[in-house]
C-alpha cells in the first residue's frame, strides 16, 4: 500500500479515501501542481478536498487513462508511454506542462475541468472495470463448457460466481487468468487483454486456483520466494512481504516446513499467501474455503473483507451459497455455461421470487381444519404449527390472524424466515 494512503496502488500512485485511483483524476493533480499558487488551482484543490477528500496530491507522472477525449485540448501535449487501445498511459511532456499553464487563463477553464471531472465521477466513469469478460466461449470437444459469458466487475467489488458442479466456473476463471484461451470473446483485467498482454494482466492479479498446489517439496518460505520472483519482486520485497503474509496467515512458525507436510487448511492458507505476495489489484479465489475448518474459513472470509476495504477487487467462486451472500456485492449464477442471473444478493432474492417462510404456532392442534383461505400459498400443518410458504408474508399473517379469531384459537408465536440465497440458487439451478 502507498504510505499513508488507503487503497492499492502502484509505486508513485495515489488514491483518495474513497479508493478511487488518482490516475483517474490525474489531470486534477497536475493542474493543482501547476496552479498551486493561483486561484484556479485553489478552486480545483478545494473540489479535490471536498469531493474526494484528497490532501495535497503529490507529484504524479502518468496521464489520464482512457478518458483523454475529455481533455482533447491537451492530447497533443502527451506522449503515449504504453498500453493498448483500451488502456493508454500518457506522460505529459515539458511542452504539455507549459501548454497547460498557458491554457488555463481563466476561472471558467478551471470550472470546465472541474465540471467534467465531477460529471465523470457521477457516472462512475473514472473507475475502470477491474474485470471485463466479453462473450467468452470455450468448448472441449462437443461440450460447450462456457457459452457467451459476459460481465463486468468494478474495482473494489467482491463478485461471486456461483453454479452447480460442471457449470463452467473454473473454466471461466481459467480464461480470465490466461490459463485457457477462449474460443471466442476476450477478457480484460484492469484494461489489459489477458491473451494479448498476459504478463501485464497477470502482474496485477493474484490467483488461488481450486485445482492447483504449492510445490510439495518446497517449504512455505521457498514457495513464496518462487512466486515473488515470478512477479519480479526484489529480494528485500520478497522477504518483507513473505514474512508479513506468513504472519498474517499463521504460518510464520512453520515457514520451513515442506508444503507436503502441511495440513489442507495450512496449504490453502499458503496458496492465499502466494496470491497476495504481489499486492494484487484483482484477486481470483476459486473455492478458497473448500475443505477448511470453521476457524480457517472464517479467517479467509475476514481477509477477503479486509482486502475489499483496501480496494482489492475479488472474484470469488464458491459452493457455499451463504458465504457468497455474506461477502459478495454482486453474484452471477452460471448454469450449463451461461450466466442465468446476475445481481446483488438482495436483488436476486427479489428477482428470482424466492419465498418467505412464515411459521405460526397456535395454542391447539390444527389437524382437520380447513385452511383454504391460505391458497394459493403452500402450507403445511404440524400439530399446532402452521408453516406457510409465500411471497407476501404480511398478507398470509393477516389471514392467519383472522382465521385464529374466527376459530377461537390463540396465536402463541409468529416467525418469519427471509428467503436465503440458497433458496435462490436452488430455484435457479432447478430451472424454476
Amino acid at each position, binding site marked *: 500500500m502507498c504510505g499513508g494512503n488507503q487503497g492499492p496502488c502502484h509505486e508513485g500512485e495515489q488514491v483518495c479515501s474513497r479508493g478511487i485511483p488518482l490516475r483517474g483524476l490525474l489531470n486534477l493533480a497536475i493542474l493543482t501542481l501547476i496552479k498551486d499558487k493561483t486561484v484556479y488551482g485553489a478552486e480545483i484543490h478545494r473540489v479535490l478536498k471536498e469531493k474526494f477528500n484528497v490532501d495535497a496530491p503529490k507529484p504524479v507522472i502518468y496521464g489520464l487513462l482512457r478518458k483523454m477525449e475529455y481533455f482533447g485540448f491537451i492530447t497533443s501535449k502527451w506522449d503515449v508511454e504504453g498500453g493498448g487501445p483500451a488502456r493508454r498511459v500518457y506522460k505529459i511532456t515539458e511542452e504539455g506542462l507549459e501548454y497547460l499553464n498557458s491554457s488555463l487563463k481563466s476561472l471558467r477553464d478551471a470550472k470546465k475541468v472541474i465540471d467534467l471531472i465531477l460529471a465523470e465521477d457521477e457516472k462512475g466513469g473514472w473507475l475502470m472495470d477491474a474485470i471485463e469478460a466479453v462473450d467468452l466461449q470455450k468448448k472441449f470437444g462437443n461440450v460447450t463448457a462456457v457459452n457467451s459469458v459476459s460481465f463486468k466487475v468494478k474495482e473494489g467489488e467482491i463478485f461471486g460466481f456461483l453454479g452447480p458442479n460442471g457449470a463452467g466456473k473454473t473454466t471461466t476463471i481459467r480464461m480470465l487468468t490466461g*490459463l485457457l484461451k477462449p474460443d471466442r470473446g476476450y477478457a480484460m483485467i484492469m484494461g489489459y487483454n489477458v491473451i494479448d498482454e498476459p504478463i*501485464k494482466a497477470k502482474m496485477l492479479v493474484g490467483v488461488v486456483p481450486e485445482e*492447483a*498446489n504449492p510445490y510439495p517439496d518446497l517449504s512455505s518460505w*521457498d514457495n513464496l520466494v518462487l*512466486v515473488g520472483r*515470478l*512477479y519480479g519482486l526484489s529480494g528485500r520485497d520478497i522477504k518483507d512481504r513473505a514474512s508479513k503474509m506468513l504472519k498474517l496467515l499463521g504460518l510464520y512458525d512453520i515457514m520451513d516446513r515442506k508444503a507436503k507436510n502441511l495440513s489442507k487448511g495450512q496449504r490453502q492458507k499458503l496458496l492465499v499467501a502466494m496470491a497476495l505476495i504481489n499486492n494484487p489489484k484483482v484477486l481470483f479465489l476459486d473455492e478458497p474455503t473448500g475443505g477448511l475448518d470453521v476457524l480457517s474459513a472464517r479467517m479467509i472470509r475476514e481477509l477477503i473483507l479486509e482486502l475489499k476495504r483496501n480496494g482489492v477487487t475479488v472474484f470469488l467462486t464458491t459452493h457455499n451459497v451463504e458465504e457468497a451472500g455474506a461477502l459478495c456485492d454482486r453474484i452471477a449464477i452460471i448454469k450449463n455455461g451461461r450466466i442465468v442471473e446476475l445481481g446483488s444478493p438482495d436483488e436476486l432474492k427479489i428477482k428470482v421470487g424466492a419465498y418467505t417462510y412464515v411459521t405460526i404456532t397456535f395454542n391447539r392442534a390444527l389437524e382437520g381444519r380447513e385452511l383454504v383461505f391460505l391458497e394459493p400459498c403452500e402450507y403445511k400443518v404440524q400439530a399446532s404449527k402452521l408453516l406457510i410458504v409465500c411471497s407476501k408474508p404480511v398478507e398470509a399473517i393477516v389471514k392467519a390472524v383472522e382465521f385464529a379469531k374466527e376459530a377461537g384459537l390463540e396465536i402463541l408465536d409468529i416467525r418469519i424466515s427471509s428467503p436465503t440465497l440458497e433458496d435462490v440458487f436452488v430455484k435457479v439451478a432447478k430451472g424454476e
Partner: protein
Amino acid sequence: MLKRVWAICWKDIKLYYAKGPIVVTGVLFPIFLWIAFYAGRGLDLREGLGSLITLTLLFTASSVTPIIAPWETRQRTLEMVLSRPITVRLMLIGDILASTIFGLIFVIPLIVLGIILNIMPANMFLTMVIVLLTAVGLSSLGIMFSALPTDTPADAVLLSSSIKLPLIFVSGVLVPITQLPTWILPITLLSPITYPTDFLGLQYLGNGFLPSYLDLTVTTLFTLAFTILALKLHEKTMLVRLQRR
C-alpha cells in the same frame, strides 16, 4: 524477464537437481559406461576424454528435463506457476537453463581434470563453446520429450531413453565412427551427439571424422532446432495438458 527465468531455474535446481540420486546417476552412470568401453580396451583418458564429456552431457543435461512437465502436471503445480506472470516460453527457458547448468557442473571438472593431467584441447574457447551448445541442445531435447501432454513421467522417460540410449552406440561415443559399419553412417550423421563427439575428438586427439567447422555448425543448428521445437511443441500442448486436468 530474467528474474522469471531465474526463478524457474532456481526452483528446478532445488527440486530436481540438488538431489542425491540425480547426482549419482549423472556422475556414476556415464563414468562406469565409459570405463566399460575404454578402460577395458586399455585406452587411456586422453583417447576417451572427449567421449566421456559427451556421454556425461547426454546423461546430465537431458536426464531431468523429460519429467518436469509431466510431473508438475500431476502435482498440479504447473497451473499454479502458469497463473503467475510468466509465459510457457520463459518457463521452459528456465528449465533449459537449470539443466544446462547441471550438465556443465559435471563436465567442467572433467575438463579441469584433463588440464591437470596435461590433456589439453587444441582450442579451449571453442571446446567450451561446443560443450555449452551441446548442453543447451540436449537440455532442449529433453524438454521436447516432455511435450507429450501426459501427467505420467514414465511416458516421457520411456520416449527419452529409447532415443538416447541407441545414440550412444551410433554416434562415435563408445565406438569410433571409423569402426562403425558403413550402413550405420546415415544414422550417425543424423545423431545430434555425433558432431560434438567428433569435435572434441579433434580437439583432444587431433583427428576427427568431419571438419571442425561442420561439427560446430551442425551442433549449433541442432541446438537451435531443438530449442525452437521444444518451445513450440510445449506451447501447442500446454493448453491440452491443462485442459485435461
